[in-house]
């Protein structure tokens, strides 16, 4: 840049301006920058700086200015091209001021005495919005002219006895607002000063609103917190475990609030086996602290719940103030049953949250934390148990069967039948031996008999007959005739020879 020749630069400026014709959208920042630049240079250098800035930011804005040297109104940049091209002062202007641009950092603050409305408004806007003491500030006052159009944005004025400040809160912030706003409410509004150019108005663009007492309440909150903390009420060691499967769940809240509805819906969905005992109590206002204390006490005495939910829907710090009451905090600490708090929204912290055994961000979350095990978990483990039961009995039956099978095997081994068989076998053996002995004896006897037979044979008279002897018997008395005196004449005799017999008669 520093080695540019002046005429090159002028040409560049012209090109830039021509290029600019094709750019359409104006950019606020560039407008501001151009305007700001213009404000900070000497009058006779204004034109150059304006153009110079556009040159650096294609798509730059509408610039309205008179050429200080030829007095022609340049108007919109694209319409001043002719002037730029023909204005002989441009080159000399650049020539004269060029070195200064390089050397000096926007040195002068010379405000023109002739403004357009737009210029002035932009100048004011730049002035106000760049002023840090007007950004991120708290402004105290009374709300008036509160309007909530369908757009969701909030419009109101903040007033005190002597002045009024227009305020706007965009929909996003307005939807997060916990404070119920109404005309006349004394509040502190946090935001930044903005200028709305079309109407030439400055206004406070709000991002948070708190009631006037809130700041003081917060100090009180901190004081109480320190006090109770020093008493040890918030010690981690005091915190009791939350039962996994509560039978009786105590609920301390307003009987009509959304918190109760959320809690009951959540419990019904997650763990409908429980019984809910509601201890109704105001949760806001003067009666709330004694009501909360009484509810906690009678719930413990009468219902002996397994766990207590202390809950309230969202609200401002004042709405939730009863939950910062020292008596309520002490009643939570003294509770027989563990206490889960669900007070306000996620971002709200009250002192009962610190003393509670468990802190939930919302009433719904408190109900969830009170039922760590849901009916679905129970169903799953019941299914598991049923399978285990069946597996166990099957295993048992199988092992019994194996046992019985084993017994049968054993029984076959030790069976009397087996002894009978053994005995029978022994008997058979004996019988076999007996038989063998018998056979032996028979054989012996037989050979003996054979010997006898042979001896007998030898004595057999028949065998004598073979040798030619004969046996003679008397027919009369059938006696063997072994003497001649045994026969008489004419006795009939039988004569046995080897092959038979014949008759004979005694003749002598």
């Amino acid at each position: 840049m520093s080695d540019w020749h002046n005429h090159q630069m002028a040409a560049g400026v012209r090109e830039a301006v021509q290029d600019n014709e094709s750019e359409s959208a104006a950019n606020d920042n560039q407008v501001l920058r151009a305007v700001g630049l213009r404000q900070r240079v000497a009058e006779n250098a204004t034109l150059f700086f304006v153009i110079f800035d556009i040159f650096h930011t294609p798509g730059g804005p509408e610039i309205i200015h008179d050429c200080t040297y030829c007095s022609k109104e340049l108007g919109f940049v694209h319409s001043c091209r002719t002037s730029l091209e023909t204005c002989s002062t441009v080159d000399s202007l650049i020539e004269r001021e060029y070195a200064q641009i390089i050397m000096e950092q926007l040195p002068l603050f010379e405000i023109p005495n002739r403004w357009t409305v737009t210029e002035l408004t932009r100048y004011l806007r730049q002035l106000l919005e760049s002023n840090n003491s007007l950004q991120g500030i708290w402004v105290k006052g009374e709300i008036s002219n509160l309007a909530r159009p369908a757009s969701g944005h909030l419009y109101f004025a903040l007033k005190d006895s002597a002045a009024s400040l227009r305020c706007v809160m965009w929909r996003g912030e307005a939807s997060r607002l916990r404070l119920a706003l109404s005309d006349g409410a004394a509040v502190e509004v946090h935001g930044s000063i903005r200028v709305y150019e079309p109407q030439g108005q400055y206004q406070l663009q709000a991002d948070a609103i708190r009631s006037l007492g809130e700041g003081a309440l917060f100090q009180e909150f901190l004081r109480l917190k320190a006090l109770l903390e020093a008493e040890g009420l918030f010690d981690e060691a005091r915190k009791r475990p939350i039962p996994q499967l509560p039978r009786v769940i105590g609920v301390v809240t307003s009987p009509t609030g959304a918190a109760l509805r959320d809690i009951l819906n959540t419990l019904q969905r997650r763990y409908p086996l429980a019984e809910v005992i509601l201890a109704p109590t105001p949760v806001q206002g003067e009666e709330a602290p004694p009501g909360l204390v009484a509810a906690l006490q009678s719930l413990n005495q009468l219902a002996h719940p397994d766990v207590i939910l202390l809950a309230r829907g969202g609200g401002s710090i004042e709405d939730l103030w009863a939950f910062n009451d020292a008596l309520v905090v002490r009643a939570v600490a003294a509770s027989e049953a563990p206490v889960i708090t669900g007070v306000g929204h996620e971002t709200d912290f009250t002192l009962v949250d610190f003393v509670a055994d468990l802190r939930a961000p919302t009433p719904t979350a408190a109900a969830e934390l009170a039922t760590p095990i849901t009916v679905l978990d129970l169903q799953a483990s019941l299914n598991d148990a049923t399978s285990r039961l069946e597996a166990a009995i099957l295993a048992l039956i199988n092992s019994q069967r194996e046992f019985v099978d084993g017994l049968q095997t054993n029984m076959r081994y030790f069976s009397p039948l087996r002894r009978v068989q053994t005995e029978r076998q022994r008997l058979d053996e004996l019988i076999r031996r007996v038989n063998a002995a018998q056979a032996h004896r028979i054989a012996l006897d037989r050979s003996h008999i054979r010997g006898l037979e042979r001896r007998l044979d030898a004595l057999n008279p028949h065998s004598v007959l073979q040798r030619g002897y004969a046996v003679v018997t008397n027919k009369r008395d059938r006696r063997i005739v072994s003497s001649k005196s045994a026969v008489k004449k004419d006795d009939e005799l039988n004569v046995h020879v080897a092959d038979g017999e014949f008759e004979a008669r005694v003749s002598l």
Partner: protein
Amino acid sequence: MLKNVEPKPVEELAYEPAYAELEGIISALETEQRPLDEALALFERGQALAKRCAELLDKAELKVRQLSGEGLAEAAE
């Protein structure tokens, strides 16, 4: 544990005692040696308990009562 207690009728048991007894029966069946007829009786009791538990889960409706004065009253949701 299971032997000497006169068992309550299953239909009268709340979920927790029913489930606790079921678990006791399962671990008894899983770890102890028992006569078969005793084991089968336990198994049947276990089955009845499991059925009871399932019914209780299926039919469960959140019961809501309200402290009023010195006592408890049914609360209409």
